[in-house]
Each structure stands twice: as C-alpha cells, then as structure tokens.
C-alpha cells in the first residue's frame, strides 16, 4: 500500500516539484501515473523508493514510513518493491539469468531457491530460452522483460514501472503493458508511470494525472477524459479531444504458474 499525505517536495535549485500531493494506492491495484515531462512523476517514484525524503508531508509504503525510518531500513523497504526502468538498467556483463538471480542474492536466497525462482519468472516473462544470453544480445522489449523479471523475482508486493515503454515501439509497449497487467492479476500492486496517452487509453485502469506538482485527475479508465483537466491544461490551439471510448480489455498473455508471482 502506498500513501502520500500532504507531500511537498522542493529541490535545492528552488524548483517546487510537488505541491501538496495526497495519493492512496491500495494493495492489488493497477494504477497509471500520467503527466507531462517535469510534472512531478519521477519525484513521486523517488519518494516511494526512499531515494528522496519529502520536504513536508508523509510517505508510507508497504508499512514503512519513509520520513521516520532509519537509513539502514531503506534496503528492506526496497526489497518489497520491484522497480522497472525506462532504460532497463541491466548489468551488461551478466547474463539474463545472472541479472535476475542477482536480485535474489541480495536478499540472501539459497542457490536452490535462486535456481527455482529465476526459472519461474523467466518463464513468466517468456524469456526462459534466452537465460544464457547477455542483455546486449536482446531486443529492447526483451531487455525490458528481463527488467520486469528482476523486479518480480523477490515476489514484491509492489511493482513500480517508470516509463517502461519509453524506449519501445508500440507493439512491444503493448506487450509489456499486458505483461504488467497480467502480473497485477496475480495479486501484485502495479504502478506504471508514463506519458503515453494512447497506450494508457487501451487499458481500463485507474489513471492518476499529475501536472505542476499537483494531482489534477484521479479516475478509472482513460487518460484525458477529465474535462476540467482538459480545459485547464490543453495546449494553445489544441482542440478538446473527444471523450475516449472505454478501451477493450487487451488479450491476456498465456497464464501459467499463477500461484507464485
């Protein structure tokens, strides 16, 4: 569970990234956090993974109050979260298997546990056959799947995907998003940060829109459907878009071994 309560965030440069954010994401939810560049999305991610402490307000994630926790507790909070990055952040010198296993070594898992679990998550993301490849030998979409496998491998209760499709073509983007939705269907809370309107509109999920450090919309289904937001934030000369139809649920990938993820 994520709970941001009256959160303000200012940087040393004077930039006020967040100006009183209240956001609650319950266990098992799938949430898109959307907004233009510089709106404060990345700042929220950094606050959730305790890379930043709020200037004011309170951030509670999976039972950890980041404003009150000791620095030595931060790694333990992060182990309850799986993070997926736009640039994948894989270690190039390690194989796909080692990149994923590496996350389990951090928590002190036994070799047997690592072998079993890594095989399972690589199968879940459809990369079991490429376990011995190096990341540089994979396509962007496959690298992002490895990143998702690494995020999943310790069975976190929350997955945060920060612009996970930013470096992918539309087809691969849809695949990744469907994979995240599938992971959510297995019980994991998923927070996806993105600014890809078309992609978000294909999923009937909760969408939290942020701009100028404020939450300007929070509703289920669609990205730019909130009238007030559209009127306030539309660009000069841009016509108000037609309300987006409720998207059809994308086809789910083949589900296997649902009991573990």
């Amino acid at each position, binding site marked *: 569970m994520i709970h941001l309560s009256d959160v303000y965030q200012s940087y040393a440069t004077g930039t006020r990234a967040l100006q009183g954010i209240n956001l609650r994401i319950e266990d098992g939810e799938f949430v898109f956090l959307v907004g233009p560049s510089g709106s404060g999305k990345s700042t929220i991610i950094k606050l959730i*993974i305790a890379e930043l402490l709020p200037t004011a307000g309170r951030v509670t994630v999976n039972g950890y109050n980041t404003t009150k926790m000791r620095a030595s507790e931060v*790694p333990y*909070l*992060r182990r309850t979260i799986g993070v997926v990055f736009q640039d994948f*952040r894989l270690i190039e010198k390690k194989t796909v298997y080692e990149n994923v296993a*590496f*996350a389990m*070594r*951090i928590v*002190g898992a036994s070799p047997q546990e690592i072998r079993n679990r890594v095989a399972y998550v690589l199968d879940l993301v459809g990369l079991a056959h490429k376990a011995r490849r190096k990341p540089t030998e994979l396509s962007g979409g496959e690298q992002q799947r490895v990143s998702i496998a690494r995020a999943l491998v310790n069975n976190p209760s929350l997955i945060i995907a920060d612009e996970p499709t930013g470096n992918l073509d539309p087809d691969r983007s849809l695949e990744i998003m469907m994979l995240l939705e599938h992971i959510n269907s297995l019980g994991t809370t998923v927070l996806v940060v993105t600014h890809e309107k078309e992609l978000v509109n294909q999923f009937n999920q909760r969408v939290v829109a942020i701009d100028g450090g404020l939450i300007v919309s929070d509703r289920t289904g669609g990205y730019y459907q909130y009238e007030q937001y559209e009127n306030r934030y539309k660009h000069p000369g841009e016509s108000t878009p037609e309300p987006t139809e409720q998207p059809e649920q994308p086809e789910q990938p083949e589900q296997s071994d649902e009991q573990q993820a």
Partner: protein
Amino acid sequence: MNNRHNFAYFFREGVQGIFTHGFMSFASVSVITTCLVLTGTVVLLMLTLTGTIDELGSVGDIRAYVDETLSDENAAALETTLRAIDNVSGVDFIDRARGLNELKEQLGENSTLLDGLENDNPLRNCYRVWVTDIGDYQDTVLAVENTRGIAQVYASVDAVSELQRLRNILGVASLTFVIMLGMVSIFLISNTIKLATFDRREEIGIMKIIGATDGFVRAPFFIESLILSVTAAVIAFVLQWIIGDAIVESALSSLTFMKVASFRDFLLPYLGAFVGTALIIGVLGSLLSIRKFLRV
C-alpha cells in the same frame, strides 16, 4: 542475509572484478608495489646509515681508569658493577700488563722507549666500556664516572653527540620521506580505485535500488582490494629482496666503513609491514572511494 551463500558470491565477484577491470587492477597493484618498494628501500638505507653511525659511535668507547689504591683483584671485580650499568653493551678489563703491551704495539718501532717498565709499570688498570645506544652516551659516561673505584674516565662526548645529532637528522629526514611517500601512495591509490569504482557506479546504483545493503555492495570491492593488496605486497617483498641483495649490498659493501643493513635480517618484519600497509592503503582506499556511490 545468508552470509554462507553470499560469501562464495562475493569471492567470485571479487576475483571477476580483478579481471574485468584488468587495467585498473594492474594500475592499483603497480602503484602499491612501487610505493612499498620505494619506502622499503628508504628504510633499508636509513637502517644502513644509522647502523654505520652507531658503529662509528663505538670508536668513541669509554675508557675508565681504576683507582690505583685498589688491588688487581678488586680492580678486576669492578667488571660486574660496570656491566650492570644501563646501556652498557660490553666491558673489557685491560690490566696494567696488557695496557703496556697495547701501548708498545701502538708505538711500533718506538716501543723500545718502554723497555724496562715491565717491572715498574706506571699504567693504571683500565676498563674499556661499550654502549648500546649512543643516544644515552652521556648518561652512561656519568654512571661510569660515579662508580666507586673508578678514578678517571675518558670519553669522546663531543664526537659522539655530533654523530648522534647526525643520526637524528637522518632519522627525521627518512621518516619525513616515508610519510610523504605514504601520502603520495594513498593519493594515487585512492584515485586509481575511484576510477575503477566510477566505472561501476551504474552497477552500484542498480544494486542499491533493488535493495542491496551497503555491506552487500562493498563486499566484492573489499575482497577485490584484499586480493590486489596482498598481491602487491608479495610482489613488493620479492622485489625488495632482489634490490636489498643485489643493489644495496653489492653497492655499499665496497664502502667498507659502512655497516650495511641486510634485507635478509628483516624478512619477517618487512613481509608483515608490506602486507599490513598494503591492506590498510588498498582496502581503506577502496571502501572510502565507494562511499559516495552508495548514497542512492
């Protein structure tokens, strides 16, 4: 955290790191080795010079003349008292007959001047006293003077204090040189390791974001530094042995008045000092260099 499982991983990562960062590893070992050999050579030279000065200091041994009112037996018995004085390393009793013979030897052709004195020897019984540390020469001379039964003492106090001053200057100069070399070593090593760590900053960032503790991140670096440091210390030790034998001894042995310090006399202290210093410099340098990359 299960340390048993992780130790094998840390060790494997540490060894892999050495080969992955081949040039940096080579640079680290080279820098540590060079600094250790330079420092070791300076110390060896310092030992040679101070040893030589101490040797020169023994020329100014103390001559203590025994009161002529004491019988020869009582005069000989003073040896125990003199040996008991602090800083006395050796005592040689020169009775009047031996004193006369030594005087004749010194006079050489002119020794006939002393003919006939054997039956009426005018010399006093005498002790030659050597000191351990010329630094305490004056105090030792005073103690010998104050010994009951000693009538007169001759000692090269001025010459010895000059030698002592020279030794002190050399000692301070050598220490300064060693400290400067140590500082240069730490600077070079910390920069070398910083470069190696900088190369891995992204990896460290990823480890931290996915929940690695600082200890987990540091461990492979620690093991890598440990291996590199010990390797550098062993190489430095072998090089120092070669230098000590081939250069110092052969070059300085031609200067016969010098008391050359042999590296072979200090094998264990050198090995201990090299390994200890390399570990401190290498491991501390590594752990300190990585610190700023842990702030994620």
